[in-house]
């Protein structure tokens, strides 16, 4: 009699718990399949842009500069020109200057030279000398700040020339407006991993996925019990 009651009880709760856990199990299964094939799906190299996927993550301010018609900014290690990735450039992005057709960008240890939006070359700033801390232009000449002195620059020999007066308006990277913000740091891999673990929904999400795991465990035990009690 007791066993019969227990079997009915387990039957009822087996179905209820199964339905309750189903939503989470579907989510965890799909994300698990995606994570198993991260490489093939290239999840680590692609970045969602919709707020539907990005709302749990605090917005990262992109520091950048507006140089004439161009917007140059850094996200992670990469430098972007008008949302197009240029090259990895060790942060921070220090400054940029447009001179005739050429756009010069200075990062911590690298100088990028572009012409008409095309990357011409990347130069190690240490070749100009140690302690290059800024770049600007004045009177049609490109200038680099070494220590406390501004110097002219000969781009053929790649050497600093004579000391020059400090330029009047030296730009500094600013936080860009929202419409220029682009996600280049939260990859699909992170989003899928966080969905899989429940962290996407905050701390409570982790407990919900934990609960679903416990329910699955109970389902397998109650399923066994129901199956074997019928055999008897």
């Amino acid at each position: 009699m007791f066993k019969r009651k227990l079997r009915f009880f387990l039957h009822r709760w087996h179905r209820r718990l199964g339905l309750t856990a189903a939503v989470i199990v579907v989510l965890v299964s799909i994300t698990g399949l995606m994570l198993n094939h991260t490489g093939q799906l290239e999840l680590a190299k692609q970045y969602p842009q919709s707020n539907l996927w990005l709302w749990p993550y605090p917005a990262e301010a992109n520091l950048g500069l507006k140089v004439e018609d161009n917007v140059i900014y850094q996200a992670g290690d990469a430098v972007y020109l008008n949302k197009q990735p240029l090259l990895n450039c060790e942060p921070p992005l220090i400054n940029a200057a447009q001179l005739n057709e050429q756009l010069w960008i200075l990062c911590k240890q690298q100088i990028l030279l572009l012409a008409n939006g095309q990357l011409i070359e990347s130069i190690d700033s240490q070749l100009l000398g140690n302690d290059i801390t800024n770049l600007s232009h004045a009177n049609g000449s490109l200038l680099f700040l070494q220590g406390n002195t501004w110097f002219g620059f000969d781009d053929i020999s790649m050497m600093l020339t004579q000391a020059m007066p400090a330029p009047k308006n030296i730009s500094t990277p600013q936080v860009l407006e929202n419409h220029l913000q682009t996600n280049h740091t939260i990859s699909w891999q992170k989003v899928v991993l966080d969905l899989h673990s429940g962290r996407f929904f905050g701390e409570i999400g982790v407990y919900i996925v934990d609960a679903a795991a416990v329910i699955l465990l109970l389902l397998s035990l109650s399923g066994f019990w129901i199956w074997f009690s019928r055999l008897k």
Partner: protein
Amino acid sequence: MTIIQRLLLVSCLFSMPSYGQVSSADFLKQYQLPQSSVKTLWLSPEQQAAVKEILSHPYAGIRIRYWQDQGRLGFILNEIGKELPITFGIVLNSKGIESMEVLAFRESRGDEIKALGFRQQFFGAQLTHGGDLNQNIDGISGATYSVRSMKKVAKLALYLQQQIQQP
């Protein structure tokens, strides 16, 4: 390379101390390439295609700086290891690669390629007609990507040497 030489190479790799970064200017000074000897090579579309074939991806840029002095050439080239760029300094002479240095290693693993015992395998290397190195380069377990990058850069430097010195 005999088994004993290989064992010696492996023991050298493990006994070598880890080096810090070498600045590009120091590299040029060390190999007596005056900074004023800098020249530029503009890559033609054919050269860009050949470089892409060597690197398995397009070269970032269309102009490459090199230093030329008394028949010797110096290049400072970057190539991605696993995720981050590794900066290499390469000196070439008429007999192939004279020396190859790792100027900046930014990855968390694989810096065994900085060891002299490993780098020496590249010294004297030339390009075969098929575009490969004419010397066998032993790999390093745990530094597969770094070794691959170094081999690509060695091939690239030798290819650029051919392009610069061809009549």
